[in-house]
């Protein structure tokens, strides 16, 4: 069967690849939104944290023989602790300043982290094998589905939806949302806001690292892998607006799918389509699809 001259299985496999990319956009833009909500910092280092997750997975396998599944937990943990240090040692000092200093500080941090890894691993990609359990593909009849890609989409969805649930439906999330609205009032109720801020940044960092681990077998692992991704994620954030968690998730996934389809029908535009959509959204709805800010 063919649609617009493209075979259906081919189309569906691009759709799945788009969903994989979209999952990364969703997790990363979700983390950016949560961090921005409480810290008022646009975390440029999100791409570098993503890269750390992936590279750490590669290092653990090659130096220590630690397998993929363990890293799926360990990498976010380590990067989360790194996030605690970043927040405590660096970000803490700039909350009272203009937003732009947060962006510049995290940009510097990005260059620093990428520079360190670059001086060791260079810029060429390192391969990481798909974990054995998820090797191969399943024939669904209408398409051949690579198991690992399906796993990435599923794992991302679980993480995203759990995050949404915790923030929107639990008491902890209520504190977090209240802290976003008015941190001083929340503090007056006896909640330790500085600790909450630290943990929020650590959580965002851990999310990015989790996405990095998922990405290790899909992309080439390299010190620069987070660089271009973070800019696309910025566009995703502009399109979706950072006011809504579910909005971030849906926008991320949707744009991934659109990008996947563009690769099929008009490959030349696949690297720019997200930016073009951003332009259109800015023309029609300047505040973003789910935006609440003025």
């Amino acid at each position, binding site marked *: 069967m063919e649609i617009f001259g493209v075979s259906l299985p081919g189309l569906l496999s691009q759709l799945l690849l788009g969903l994989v990319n979209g999952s990364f956009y969703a997790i990363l833009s979700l983390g950016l939104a949560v961090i921005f909500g409480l810290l008022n910092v646009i975390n440029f280092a999100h791409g570098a944290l993503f890269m750390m997750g992936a590279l750490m997975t590669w290092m653990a396998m090659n130096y220590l023989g630690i397998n993929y599944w363990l890293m799926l937990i360990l990498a976010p943990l380590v990067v989360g602790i790194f996030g605690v240090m970043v927040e405590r040692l660096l970000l803490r000092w700039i909350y009272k300043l203009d*937003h*732009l200093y947060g962006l510049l*500080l995290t940009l510097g*941090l990005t*260059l620093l982290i*990428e*520079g360190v890894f670059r001086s060791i691993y260079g810029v060429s990609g390192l391969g990481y094998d798909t974990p054995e359990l998820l090797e191969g593909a399943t024939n669904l009849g209408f398409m051949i589905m690579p198991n690992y890609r399906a796993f990435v989409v599923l794992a991302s969805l679980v993480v995203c939806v759990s995050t949404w649930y915790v923030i929107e439906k639990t008491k902890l999330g209520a504190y977090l949302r209240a802290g976003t609205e008015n941190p001083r009032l929340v503090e007056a109720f006896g909640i330790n806001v500085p600790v909450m801020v630290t943990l929020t940044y650590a959580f965002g960092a851990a999310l990015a690292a989790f996405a990095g681990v998922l990405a290790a077998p899909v992309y080439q692992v390299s010190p620069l892998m987070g660089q271009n991704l973070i*800019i696309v994620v*910025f566009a995703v954030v502009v399109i979706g607006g950072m006011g809504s968690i579910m909005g971030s998730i849906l926008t991320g996934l949707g744009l991934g799918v659109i990008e996947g389809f563009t690769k099929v029908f008009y490959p030349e535009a696949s690297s*720019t389509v997200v930016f073009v959509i951003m332009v259109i959204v800015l023309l029609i709805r300047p505040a973003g699809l789910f935006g609440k800010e003025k």
Partner: protein
Amino acid sequence: MNFKNTANIGYGLLLLALLAAPFLGAYPIFVMKLMCFALFASAFNLLLGYTGMLSFGHAAFLGGSAYMTGHALKVWAVTPEIGLLLGTLGGGLLGLVVGFFAIRRQGIYSTMITLALAQMLFFVFLQAPFTGGEDGLQGVPRGKLFGLIDLQNDLVMYYVVLAVVVAAFMLIVRTIHSPFGQVLKGIKENEPRAISLGYDTNRFKLLAFVLSAALAGLAGSLKTLVLGFATLSDAHWTASGHVVLMTLVGGLGTLSGPIVGSAVVVLLENKLGEIGSFLASVTGVEWFNTLGESVTMVTGLIFVICVLAFRRGIMGEIIEWLARRRAANAGA
């Protein structure tokens, strides 16, 4: 001696030094490159330091204009002044488009928009046939200025670049001190108040954006004319980060800051290898020898230090120090 005189003497000395530089053993091409970056940073500062808008898309204007000028000189064989003019107009035009979208949102969102649009332009340059893709545009001829003055001679080229950069810098100074510049400052301090005073702040912001982009474009065009090539790396977002760093190191919102900052950053990057070998020989730590290859790492470190501890930048600190001394003298 009042502050204005001190500043004027400083600029006078700098101009003298630049006029004499080729005879004092400075490598003209390198000084020309420095001047291009100084102009680029000054143009950027017009926007961030005096209007309060952080653009992360200035690489697109620098790189885009470099391609336009390169194409005009090489393929259309126009004279250099027309090439520069086209590059500047092209930069302004790109600025108009990017600025139009950037001012639709406020603050940090606006920055993200400029970054995203510049990245889009980067991919366009990567794929467009006239840019030469990853190889860049090579072998751009310098030609004859007004069809008369041969620019092949580095010394002639040097004084042409100096004249253009000084003229552009004076335009920036004039803009800042004009009523238009005062409105921009007002927008930076308090946009809602500027609106309530009846200013259409979006129009002012857009105009500042276009001017800044056009001058950044001029810097890119000059760079192509001097070096004879235009590369993709000038259009990459790291070049935007670079210009932010230059401005920050030199001093945000000071006229002289971007000049000093660009000189410091460019010199540092060029000499990093030597600094590294020096540190290695002094401390005996072998690792310092590799410092020359770790430019990004050092750049990142300077960024972090500047934001945390040195937000006024070099010239900002000096101006602050002079002002304090004057206040102390007046009090005594």
